């Protein structure tokens, strides 16, 4: 069915339509020309709804600054260390947006890798001690959330883990 051309063509000499004639095909094509798929038709709503929106004073910017749509901005954030937190912030708090994509792309450029099971980003702290086709193992830095206690409030942090096995089937 898939191999021989014969199935498709039945000899070029066969009528030019499966069940329709040329005139019909042209008519249908013409009517379809006025119902073309629009760019909007294949776009997903990229809206993000915050779970717990924070009330901010009116003096704070109320709309997104246009620069966050510029990939060069994210490039800049990635190329200095302070920017990494911003990348993580955008990734987790701006889910399903273009900014999340840009942040993820930048994190990847900075050699962070996303683990699908733990839903967080890992970076090799050193060359892996072992590596097979299925996993690598060694010391990694990863991005985590610290649950507050008497000494410290809730917050994002980076932790280091020795002898961690990163299985590639969890690699995003």
């Amino acid at each position, binding site marked *: 069915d898939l191999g021989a051309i014969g199935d498709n063509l039945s000899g070029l000499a066969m009528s030019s339509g499966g069940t329709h004639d040329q005139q019909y095909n042209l008519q249908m094509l013409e009517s379809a020309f006025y119902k*073309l*798929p629009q*760019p909007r038709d*294949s776009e997903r709503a990229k809206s993000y709804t915050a779970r717990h929106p924070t009330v901010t004073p009116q003096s704070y910017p109320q709309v997104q600054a246009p620069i966050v749509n510029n990939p060069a901005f994210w490039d800049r954030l990635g190329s200095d260390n302070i920017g990494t937190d911003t990348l993580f912030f955008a*990734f*987790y708090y701006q*889910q*399903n947006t*273009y900014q*999340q*994509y840009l942040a*993820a*792309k930048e994190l*990847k450029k900075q050699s962070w890798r*996303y683990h*699908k099971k733990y*839903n967080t980003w890992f970076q090799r702290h050193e060359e892996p001690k072992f590596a097979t086709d299925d996993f690598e193992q060694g010391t990694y830095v990863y991005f985590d*959330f610290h649950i507050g206690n008497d000494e410290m409030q809730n917050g994002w942090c980076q932790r280091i883990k020795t002898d961690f096995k990163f299985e590639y089937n969890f690699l*995003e």
Partner: protein
Amino acid sequence: LGIDLTTLGLNLNSAESLYRTFGSPWTDEPVKGDPDFTVPQCYY
């Protein structure tokens, strides 16, 4: 039936894959984002 193909808006000299930014057959506008780099909805 011959046209200057450089007018179709595809950078044929690009070192990167074209399909990653290919919007549609009807436009020369590239699409934002990379479908291969799936960005998950995650719990935190």
